[in-house]
């Protein structure tokens, strides 16, 4: 039972990462590898500030702001200096590695007895079991975040952002600065990803400079699983899908590890999975073109 609750909780925490990847990958078609640096950035800022005695809520908000700045910088490198998006992300990710080490002062920063958002959530009075309380609080928070994102993408600014990803030529002709939209969107995405990192650090009780490795593909996998379950559709549905995708993916991994999968193979399998998910639509399309029946 506690294994299940743990997997669900981590799945939900990482669904914030999935939502960030959803923004960069689905809204902007931008494979933003900044994620690997910004999730660690969020974790290290939150951990360092909490250790220094700051209250965990402020520490988490500052971590989020840090992610926003990181994403914005990737956006500026990409749009103002015309550097390929993937390369812009790699530059930022690499730079963040040093930044994260500086923030923590060492490669691993444990949170010992400090009060965290997780310990606060666990102490909620009316739910007796600590782990269940944490799970429910995070579930509520993620749901709220999803609703907020959904509403945001229906505002004038939000629709302009979506149009920027969908048809930049058109939206420029309607007076929107597409470079600014991309920069702002990447800022938002990485703020969510840093938030995910900040909460993850508080949940697992430490921040580690290596914790971001493979996280981008993890987020992509969640988004792709979610899309497959929901079957495409509106932005709102895709948001729900990304959250569900993250939880389901985490559960699958937990089950696989339980069944004896070598943890070292985890990232290899994740990468293979995303690869297959990415080429599958292309292959089925090709087969359809050749007139082969595809069920």
């Amino acid at each position, binding site marked *: 039972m506690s294994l299940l609750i743990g997997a669900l909780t981590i799945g939900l925490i990482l669904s914030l990462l999935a939502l960030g990847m959803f923004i960069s990958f689905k809204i902007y078609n931008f494979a933003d590898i900044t994620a690997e640096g910004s999730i660690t950035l969020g974790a290290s800022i939150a951990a360092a500030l909490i250790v220094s005695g700051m209250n965990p809520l402020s520490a988490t908000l500052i971590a989020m702001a840090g992610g926003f700045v990181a994403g914005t910088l990737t956006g500026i490198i990409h749009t103002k200096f015309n550097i390929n998006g993937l390369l812009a992300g790699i530059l930022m990710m690499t730079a963040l590695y040093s930044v994260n080490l500086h923030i923590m002062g060492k490669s691993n920063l444990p949170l010992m007895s400090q009060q965290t958002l997780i310990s606060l959530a666990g102490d909620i009075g009316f739910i007796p079991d600590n782990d269940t309380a944490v799970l429910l609080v995070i579930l509520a928070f993620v749901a709220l975040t999803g609703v907020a994102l959904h509403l945001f993408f229906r*505002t*004038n600014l939000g629709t302009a952002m*979506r*149009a920027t990803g969908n048809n930049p030529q058109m939206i420029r*002709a309607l007076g929107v*600065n597409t470079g600014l939209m991309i920069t702002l969107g990447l800022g938002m995405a990485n703020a969510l990803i840093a938030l995910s990192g900040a909460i993850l650090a508080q949940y697992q009780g430490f921040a580690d400079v290596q914790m971001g490795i493979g996280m981008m593909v993890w987020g992509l996998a969640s988004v792709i699983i979610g899309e497959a379950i929901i079957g495409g559709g509106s932005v709102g549905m895709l948001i729900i899908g990304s959250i569900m995708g993250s939880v389901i993916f985490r559960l699958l991994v937990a089950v696989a590890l339980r069944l004896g999968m070598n943890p070292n193979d985890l990232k290899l399998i994740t990468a293979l999975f995303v690869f297959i998910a990415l080429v599958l639509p292309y292959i089925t399309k090709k087969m359809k073109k050749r007139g082969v029946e595809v069920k």
Partner: protein
Amino acid sequence: MIEISNIKKVFNPGTPNEVLALDDVSCTIETGSFVILLGTNGSGKSTLLNAVAGTFFPDSGTIKLNGTDITNMQEHQRAKYIGRVFQNPCSGTAPDMSIAENLALAVRRGAKRGLGAALNRGDMEEFRKKVKSLNMGLEERLANPIGKLSGGQRQALTLLMSTWIKPDLLLLDEHTAALDPKTANKVIQLTESIVNKDKLTTMMVTHSMQQAVNLGDRILMLHNGKIVYDIKGADKRVIKASDLLAMFDDIRKKEQIDPSASDMLRENYI
């Protein structure tokens, strides 16, 4: 009024692919005038349109719109004054977004976009009314993604969108070239009614002699990045497609284009 003065543009300078796309082009277009840009492929007509739209910055020269120098304005900044319809029906609309959302994007052309809801009830009523005027039955499909519509329907909607806020200048870049003849006709009729209704200052690139004869009050014929004929007033009213073809022939003789190009002209224009 648009004042284009001594616009020059060289693409790929210093390479074997160097092209003098616009060679010291100057012209003044009066407010309310509907100008047709004609010319062979590579004559510079679309380049001139894109220079006005701000897709690229000219090497030299200035462009003024109603007295404001827009030469160094970014594309999205001039969009406040300029409505555009592209050759490719896919270019003017966001395919994955609904018809209503696309219209909502157009309603705020050049305006600030904040955190207000993009779709509100009042707007929806107006969307339905205007879309209904297209007589395409799209008013019942406002929530559908625009990418599912035909090229003609998308082009009609793009026209509606580009002129929703009355633009100081409307740029039409061969906007019927990708459509079948019947649909193209419909879109041309719609263009005429929209332009006439609001007396829009319009520049339209076309390959069709018939459109050039039937529409507008002025024809600019371009060749090798220069305006070679400027037909307006009474001359424009009486001109026939055969006259335009004769002018093309004339250009051909003067410039001695190779025979294959002249064959292509015949195919395209007769």
